[in-house]
């Protein structure tokens, strides 16, 4: 199991546990983390699971694929550390990951 920390836009943190192999989006949805909508259920087709990856974790989560970049075009307030949480697979390395949920999804 890995711990994932979701910071909402007011700064409050919610920590949830998820098994390796699941996605960060799934960790949020299963634990009803507010602000992650995931309308398309993780198919990289809606951009409503947008998060900002904490700077300290950006190397470990890596960069978005071209398909994900295309979808991020539809996001709200997209920044260099923006990712779609359904495209981040949780690994042992990501135990303790910190992501911030944007003020609103697209």
């Amino acid at each position, binding site marked *: 199991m890995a711990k994932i920390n979701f910071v909402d836009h007011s700064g409050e943190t919610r920590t949830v546990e998820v098994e390796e192999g699941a996605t960060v989006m799934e960790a949020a949805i299963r634990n009803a983390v507010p602000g992650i909508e995931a309308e398309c259920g993780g198919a990289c087709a809606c951009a409503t699971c947008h998060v900002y990856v904490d700077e300290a974790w950006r190397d470990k989560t890596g960069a978005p694929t071209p398909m994900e970049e295309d979808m991020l075009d539809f996001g709200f307030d*997209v920044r260099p550390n923006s990712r779609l949480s359904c495209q981040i697979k949780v690994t042992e390395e990501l135990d303790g990951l910190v992501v911030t949920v944007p003020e*609103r999804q697209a």
Partner: protein
Amino acid sequence: MSEAIKTDVLIVGAGPCGLFAVFELGLLDVKVHLVDILDKIGGQCAELYPEKPIYDIPGIPMITGHGLTESLLEQIKPFNPTFHLNEMIETVEKIGDPGFRVTTDAGKVFECKVLVVAAGGGSFQPKRPPVPGIEAYEGGSVHYAVRKMEEFRDKDLMIVGGGDSALDWVLNLHPLAKRITLVHRRDDFRAAPHSVEQMRALVASGQMDLLIGQVTALEGEGNVLSAATVKGNDGTVTKVACNAMLPFFGLTMKLGPVANWGLHLENNLIPVDTGTFETNVPGIFAIGDINTYPGKLKLILSGFHEGALMAQKAVKYVYPDKRVVFQYTTSSSSLQKKLGVN
């Protein structure tokens, strides 16, 4: 208004469930017209995930959204349905028992005995882009589609987005507009490479502007824009004169006019009888993602089953005196004749 098109059944929505319903109705000799607001057939499969795999269509281990749409079209070809694309069904009026007069936003009129609502998550509509206060300018300077190109003549036009719609309109409207500024959040475009090249050539020769960043603020009076502020990825802030804007941020599904047809709704879904998939209005059926009943699953396979049962009841309205006999496509020579295989 044009003369009414008469049909047995009118289907709202050409998604997978609307398409398969054509097959089930066709086996019972029922003729169908379909209307969809999209410019293509296939609903969510075509618009949201054409290249993605689907693994749970019975008997087909893997097929893409596009592939499924193509296969369904092949399967219903013998029944020769008529498609009306780029049109939204707006009004439904009861004229018979049952019988309906249905109009589209393009002014087309249908008269049908049975209406099948296969509207999925609702009509696809352009997404409102994430720019604060943009609502105020909708209907004025902000447009989500080009109806008349002339509207953009001599305008300071800002086009936002990086896909084919954005690039196509840059190229088409460039000769008309006073100046075009294209805004995209990154210097990489999803649009066809050929269009991107043409756009870059216009920028290089100083005939239009390209800004990499996001629109953060709008200025204007009433619903008329005067300027837009663009924040670059490097932090620079540019204010651009702008009295017309075309944002292209993809499509989202909104229930839309379905809400006004006198059908009961539960959380924006239409409750149905699970023996017939008929709604509270006799002669109006609802199948696929748009309906709800205890145990409903929003899966394509559920919508296929719903279409089959719907057809058994719909045929009774279309041919009240005909006795419907249950038959298999494998063994019935009359069904095979209809399918053109015998």
